[in-house]
């Protein structure tokens, strides 16, 4: 039922000084790429991708940016949150050689699919990027999977200076890939799609969400595609038909906001 299950936080971890992970119990099957609507009682309810998938425990990893994420940031072990989900489609690991590209908090939801790909013994390379060194997270976690990891920071304080797409362009030239999976700023993902040419491509989109189960219409893009149910993961075929992709999103009122 699309009703939040109220649960106690069983673990929290600061990934860096603006990014935190919260873990809680869960006994539903989850495909990496799916998300939950997280209710912070008295504050807001916001969509959050799953960043950790353990047996009966899942985690979300988020950045402090506004009222809800700030409130969430201040919660401690034992505090109550509500969670309804999982919602949406997940990534499909159809390919042997896969490139993962994560920008900003987008890295959070890529981590579990990277771990799954490793378990399936696929051949993978990972690029993660952030504005600056302090904002990076999950470097250690991804390295530990054994995946080949490339890092960029916009300001060059760590890894390659520049954007993830710069690294991607280079790697794609030199290697063969069956599939690219990405999550991050939409303009980055759009650019990556252009770069990817005819390599299969899946990107995770973010839109303002209210219901999460396909009724309110708040998250619709293109020809009425619901990001919450038909997405948030879309392949290049669909993305190419979505006129809004990389162009605009809508705010809570439905007004268009250019990227």
């Amino acid at each position, binding site marked *: 039922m699309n009703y939040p299950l*109220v649960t106690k936080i069983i673990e929290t971890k600061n990934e860096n000084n603006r990014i935190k992970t919260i873990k809680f119990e869960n006994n539903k099957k989850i495909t990496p790429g799916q998300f939950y609507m997280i209710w912070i009682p008295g504050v*807001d309810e916001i969509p959050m991708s799953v960043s950790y998938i353990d047996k009966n425990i899942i985690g979300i990893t988020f950045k402090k940016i506004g009222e809800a994420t700030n409130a969430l940031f201040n919660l401690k072990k034992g505090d109550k949150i509500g969670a309804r989900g999982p919602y949406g489609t997940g990534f499909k690991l159809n390919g042997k050689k896969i490139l993962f590209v994560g920008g900003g908090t987008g890295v959070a939801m890529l981590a579990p699919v990277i771990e799954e790909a490793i378990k399936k013994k696929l051949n993978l390379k990972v690029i993660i990027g952030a504005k600056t060194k302090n904002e990076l997270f999950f470097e250690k976690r991804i390295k530990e999977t054994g995946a080949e990891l490339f890092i960029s920071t916009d300001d060059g304080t760590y890894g390659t200076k520049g954007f993830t797409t710069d690294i991607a362009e280079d790697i794609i030239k030199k290697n063969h890939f069956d599939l690219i999976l990405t999550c991050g700023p939409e303009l980055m993902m759009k650019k990556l799609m252009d770069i990817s040419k005819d390599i299969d491509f899946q990107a995770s989109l973010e839109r303002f969400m209210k219901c999460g189960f396909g*009724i309110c*219409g*708040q998250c619709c893009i293109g020809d009425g595609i619901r990001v919450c149910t038909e997405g948030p993961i879309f392949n290049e075929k669909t993305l190419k038909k979505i006129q809004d992709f990389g162009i605009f999103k809508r705010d809570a*009122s*439905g007004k268009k906001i250019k990227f």
Partner: protein
Amino acid sequence: MIEIPTKIANLRLKNPTILASGIMDEDAGSMIRIFKSGAGAIVTKSIGLKPREGYPNPSVIELECGLLNAMGLPNPGIEEFKSEVIKLKKSKVTVIGSIFGSNSKEFTVLGTKMQDAGVNALELNMSCPHAKGYGLEIGSDQKIVEKITTNVKSSVSIPVFVKISPNLTDIPKIAQSAEKGGADAIVAINTVKAMKIDIETQRPILSNKIGGYSGKAIKPIGIRCVYEIYKKVNIPIIGVGGINTGEDAIEYMMAGASAVQIGSAIYSRDIYVFEKICKEIKNWMKTNNYKKIDELIGVANL
């Protein structure tokens, strides 16, 4: 072959199933998609003069027998919304523009702008149960309902429908006020005022606390309202509330509805619900030897 075209005032519909206001109808893309997937017409999200973000989440959740929402009339405002209507008209979608305001002047301005943008008819939302200063607060006063309807009617030339609330002591009276004001049809019902308290956190789950109840739980309430209204007005009624199947739609018609709107069932039966319901209506008519939908309207009013 049984065909089920319908006419409400001078609005012709390919079939009597209409997308209800507030469900996947804030952007042209969705509305075109739903129209193409089988709806006879689309009612837009209720639009006001200025952009409104609506209430914070949670704004819609599922209950045991239906949905509970307090969106708070989020909308981008009529100026921005016009472009969506224009796109709809390019795609030849039959569209009913839903509008809300706090007084007769606002309704009139909105109605005129919607007409200019190209909608085929107007639906005046006088029944939202959870928006301060709008909706039900206006729609529970006979004089205001009549006045707004009269003023909107005199400033537009397209059909004007008035959507009314079940949260009233005397629903047919409000319907009669709309009729007096010149409404071309009554739309009934909007959601039922309701609430869910989450006992784990000891608070109402919706950020707005009180919300509107929709879905199958409210069908018997909607049927009763349509039945009561049918006895008291001479204009067509569009039935809404908990319609999930062709049988549900037929039940509304027998109560007195000339057409139906469908909202929450998009969740239970997906956007193809319109096509499915039309098929079920036709099958039922075939089995029961009906040729025209008109033969069903109001037959249960003995």
